[in-house]
């Protein structure tokens, strides 16, 4: 079985590397190998536009997919996504408030800060609830209700906003990997790395959670501790992406399901590696499409992820043998 995975993973990594190089050089449209250090316009475009975009798309794809995997394993629910705990709705709310107060003149920095503060704030709310709520199903419902509640507040804010603020908010909701600046990349990488390292320590708990939280507890899992760690790590991964790219949907939902279908295992060592690779590939392909059609038509990133993500989920559900 190990050999089977090695081949598959090597193939996937090769695809990832090739498509990354394609993306870095401008996608199908403007393929153009240039020197990194050149001071020409092409060189500047490569360094300031392409490089952050490529790095961001890989980080966003893998982060969101991993968050989705963590949530799906913890809640034992294939329809759980990174937003299920309501953390991204926190970012949504705070960004809506920021845009309403300053409209189209909001600075990039204030939007990023608002998203991060929103994610942290709502993580605390969920952590607070998690202390009072025992079962995982109840926690899931709390998360979903929190999202719904926040949505209605956001709608209220939108009803009172200027047209400029509304437009900015709508555009933020399109999701974009192009907004990130080159000098923001190091800090993004640091946080991604922190999340990534913690994943190594989550392999065993996640493998135990596969048989349910009760059985896992008998096998030595500390449910309270694991709940906290999962919430914090999901917040880091999801908050990071939402802050710099806006809310990107369907990646966290579709990719883990796809990974399980391809690798046919519950061992999270394999699943995590598979999710990181396939998550990056998925969003990379979506963005390559946006790239290629850029000069003809502007397609929001979220439209493409949904156009691909939803059919994948439907296909998985149809293919699945429901055994309840």
């Amino acid at each position, binding site marked *: 079985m190990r050999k089977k995975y090695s081949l598959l993973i090597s193939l996937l990594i090769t695809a990832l590397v090739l498509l990354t190089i394609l993306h870095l050089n401008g996608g199908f449209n403007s393929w153009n190998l240039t020197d990194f250090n050149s001071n020409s316009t092409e060189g500047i475009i490569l360094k300031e536009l392409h490089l952050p975009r490529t790095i961001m798309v890989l980080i966003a794809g893998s982060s969101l997919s991993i968050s989705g995997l963590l949530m799906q394993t913890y809640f034992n629910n294939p329809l759980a996504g990174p937003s299920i705990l309501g953390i991204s709705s926190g970012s949504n709310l705070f960004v809506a408030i920021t845009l309403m107060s300053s409209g189209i003149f909001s600075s990039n920095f204030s939007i990023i800060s608002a998203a991060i503060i929103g994610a942290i704030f709502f993580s605390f709310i969920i952590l607070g609830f998690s202390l009072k709520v025992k079962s995982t199903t109840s926690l899931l419902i709390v998360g979903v209700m929190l999202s719904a509640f926040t949505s209605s507040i956001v709608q209220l804010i939108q009803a009172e906003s200027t047209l400029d603020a509304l437009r900015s908010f709508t555009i933020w909701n399109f999701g974009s990997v192009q907004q990130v600046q080159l000098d923001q990349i190091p800090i993004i990488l640091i946080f991604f790395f922190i999340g990534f390292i913690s994943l190594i320590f989550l392999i*065993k708990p996640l493998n135990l959670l*596969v*048989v349910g939280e009760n059985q896992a507890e*008998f*096998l*030595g899992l500390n449910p309270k501790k694991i709940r906290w760690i999962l919430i914090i790590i999901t917040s880091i991964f999801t908050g990071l992406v939402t802050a710099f790219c806006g809310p990107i949907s369907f990646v966290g939902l579709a990719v883990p399901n796809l990974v399980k279908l391809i690798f046919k295992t*519950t061992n999270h060592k394999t699943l995590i590696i598979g999710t990181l690779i396939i998550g990056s590939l998925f969003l990379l392909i979506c963005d390559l499409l946006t790239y290629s059609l850029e000069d003809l038509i502007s397609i929001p990133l979220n439209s493409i992820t949904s156009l691909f993500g939803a059919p994948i989920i439907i296909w998985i559900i149809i293919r699945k043998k429901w*055994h309840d």
Partner: protein
Amino acid sequence: MIEIKEVEIGINANLFSIDKVKLEKGKLYSLIGKNGSGKSTFLRTLGEIIPPFKGKIHWEVNSSKEQRISFVTSKFDGVEYLTTYDYIALGRAPYTNIFGKLKSEDHDFIKNICDKLNLNPLLDKFTTEISDGERQIASIAKAICQDTELIILDEPIAFLDYENKIKITQILADITKQRNCCIIHSSHDIDISLIKVDELLIIDSINKELTQYPIEKINKAMVLNIAFPNVQLLDI
């Protein structure tokens, strides 16, 4: 090994009290009582999921909970893409390192148990692809791999056919002797219990007490009298 003295069992109120019960290694215990008498509550108290209503349960050994107690539920529906081997291997979790890595000694241990329980042909299949009875045996194998002093089973044979009921009860009896552990299970199959177990723990819901009876000192009529006083023994 485990001493339960002057303890009351219940969550919000006392369901029944225990004067003195001793659970020893190498013995198979059967817990008998009416529906609602508090069997599951007692097992969960033993399993340290909930505290006793009053009093404390004393253990001789002091190791961590996951190395002392293992718990088998009545029904396991399997998990998609989880192989039987990997499921059973989860039992070794209390002994693996922080990354969950199984050493070769662990693998040997697991394979040994699977061999004894005749699970070898099922090991590569997914837990969703084997039968209920096979899954139950696998769950027991997992509990055995956990190598605990006490194995608790909550109605393990309730959903199985007659053949499997006998088979599993025999397995439980064998394991207590072979691995020198204590196994307690709740059961509605009084006849099978009377043949295979070492001692009965019977809940008298009218007097609200649980008493321990070695198998030599009890028969079916007595069991019914204590646990199900309204039932008349059918002469077949």
